[in-house]
């Protein structure tokens, strides 16, 4: 297959953007679910993702210390460890910092969430150290789609990139089925429409909200694990920027809408990749913030969301 160089460059950015976007999408689901049900911005969600990345890193180091070399078994164990412990953090944060504030003024949970975020960042910094942590590349190799012999630009997809995109796609399909088909999903949809009515109809609202936080944290943990694998370097501060970007993704897709979060994640990933590839890479974060401001001011309901009508 012959591809002209500009096209090859475009393809490479597309692949990078899709990988980045599927990770943002996973985090964005946590924001959008919580917003849909409790109506609050879980500002600490980025920190939960950071915890997931650290837990995955700890599991990796522990497994390589005992000399486990099988790639699939390592992946499964790391995934289970990271998801389990991160979900426990997600549950605790909701129980301690958000549940007591469920009926307080609108901004109180947001401020509490900022407090949680500051706490978690500094907690990890104090216990795990402030320096960035690097692990050995784990899943090496890949496919060269378009060979770059004689110095031409090569388009490559690594196995890891394929794994990330396939795995997130499977997770999102499973998650969509969970919301659409199970009784838990029905309870969540009911709670997102009307908390009080749902509780009158016999839905355990506290339990549903707890489960929502646990699921959101689990998905963020998967994202954290994938990032640890993909970049190989993490530090205690990664949660802030990733959190903002995922939140932007959720807003862009329409906050409260699950397909919106996935779409928004992909779009943000693509925008970031193409902006770095074609415009100024050092302003890629500014571009994301700019989109956030633009979407919220021009189309607050996002791409797939419904406009919120305030009733008096």
């Amino acid at each position, binding site marked *: 297959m012959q591809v002209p160089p500009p096209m090859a460059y475009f393809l490479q950015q597309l692949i990078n953007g899709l990988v980045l976007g599927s990770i943002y999408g996973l985090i964005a689901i946590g924001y959008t679910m919580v917003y849909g049900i409790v109506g609050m911005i879980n500002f600490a969600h980025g920190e939960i993702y950071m915890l997931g990345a*650290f837990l995955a890193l700890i599991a990796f*180091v522990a497994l390589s210390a005992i000399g486990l070399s099988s790639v699939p078994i390592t992946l499964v164990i790391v995934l289970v460890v990271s998801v389990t412990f991160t979900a426990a953090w997600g549950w*605790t944060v909701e129980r301690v910092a958000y549940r007591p504030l469920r009926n*307080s003024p609108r901004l109180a949970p*947001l401020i509490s969430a*900022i407090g949680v975020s500051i706490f978690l960042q500094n907690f990890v910094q104090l216990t795990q150290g402030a320096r960035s942590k690097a692990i050995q590349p784990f899943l090496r190799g890949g496919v060269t789609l378009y060979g770059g012999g004689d110095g031409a630009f090569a388009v490559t997809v690594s196995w890891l990139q394929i794994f990330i995109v396939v795995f997130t796609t499977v997770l999102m399909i499973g998650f969509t089925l969970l919301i659409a088909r199970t009784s838990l999903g029905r309870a969540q949809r009911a709670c997102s429409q009307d908390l009080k009515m749902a509780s009158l109809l016999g839905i355990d609202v506290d339990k549903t909200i707890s489960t929502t936080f646990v699921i959101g944290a689990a998905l963020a943990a998967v994202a954290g694990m994938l990032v640890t694998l993909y970049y190989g370097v993490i530090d205690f501060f990664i949660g802030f920027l990733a959190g903002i970007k995922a939140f932007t993704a959720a807003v862009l897709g329409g906050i409260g809408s699950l397909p919106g979060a996935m779409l928004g994640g992909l779009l943000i990933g693509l925008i970031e990749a193409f902006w770095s590839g074609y415009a100024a890479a050092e302003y890629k974060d500014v571009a994301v*913030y700019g989109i956030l401001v633009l979407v919220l001011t021009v189309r607050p309901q996002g791409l797939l969301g419904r406009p919120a009508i305030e009733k008096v």
Partner: protein
Amino acid sequence: MLTKASRTTFLVPLRDGVLAGLVALVLAFPIVGLPTSETAHGLVLRPRIPEAIAFAVAVFLGRFALGVAEAGKPRPILLIALLVAIAAPFASAAPEFGAALAIGGLFVALRSALLAFPGVAGRISGGIRVPPVAIKRAPLVLLLLLVVLPLTPVIDRRLLDIAVLVLTYVMLGWGLNITVGLAGLLDLGYVAFFAIGAYAYALLSLTAGLSFWGALPIAGLCAAAAGLIVGGPILRLRGDYFAIVTLGFGEIVRLVAINWSSLTGGSQGIAQIPRISFFGLADFTATPDPGRRAFHELFGISFDPAHRQIFIFYVILALALAVNAFIARSRKLPLGRAWEALREDEIAAQSLGLNLQRIRLSAYAIAAAWGGFAGAFFAVRQGFISPESFSFLESAVILAIVVLGGVGSQLGVVLAAIVMIGVPELVRQLAEYRMLAFGVAMVAIMVWRPSGLISRREPSIRLGDAT
């Protein structure tokens, strides 16, 4: 056989305690117990399992004690907790663990004291109610203390430095209180205006040769203009959306400051910003430039390097007081009343003919101007600025001061700034844990008292006599 009473007093708290301890163990085991550390051969684990277990046991004990206290036995728990809190720092081998145990013990003691003496508890849970006379006099006494502070012999350079820092945060807290307290808008990017003011002064003084006093109003105007431009489109947004957008704005300003190196010096920042002068009349140096006068010559006193610092202290005191006076005045003006009306009920206020957009914009831009003044002061005091000083964390700290003090309470901001900025500066060993405590305090105060420590805020206006 356990009686029914002892079952509820001990078994239920025991169950809760075990559950809390187990959760704590799950949370702490990997993060606290298995820290990774860098070596030449990559990362290795350096297990600290005992610490993680100690953490879980402490959580279990605390939860159990609280449960027993809540179930009707607060007095013995109060005694035990106090003993633990006092003995822990001496008995424990690891100082950090002892300190943690002492804080935990104090917390349990406080909680059981509130349960043991419900009369006191009732008064405190309504906010710390200081007698009105004290509230009325407190600012005056505080002010007098501050005015004479630099002249008293107790003060040394370090203390004065801390006082200036605290006052800077008080000024920022009061400025942010215009948006958060009066207008009810949660601004998470206030530091942007602080940054704009600081860069405006630094650039004006270095390129145009303006003095601090000449540049100060311009710095404020620049920040206010930024507030007007940014505020215009975003003020229609609902509370939490507005908060996130302002956060984005704050970060954009910081990133631009990092990347626009030709103007801002990039992440290196701007150094050698000209120092403050005595109202342009004299400089604070031993040897003034030709054609300039030195401060000590002007007054015919001997040279002392502390003069500049004392002058800086009075400048920030005056600036902070100006913000305070502005707020006190504006609450009596139609504009301030409109801010508060919109905060209390957007729809009702709008249907009475208030222009939401314009009124909110005025609050946002005015707060921005004060932030800009504070920024110019920051630049002239430090002599060096870099984007690092203007991160989101800084916005969060200023917001925390406003929130912890009690949104809208002027005195609360002062108290919170002293506790949050002054105490950690005085006790350097705590500096490492400062932000950790910050986060915990923000959550705890929101859960315990969503309206802040001092919740004295009287309505600005009453209809008729409140009988």
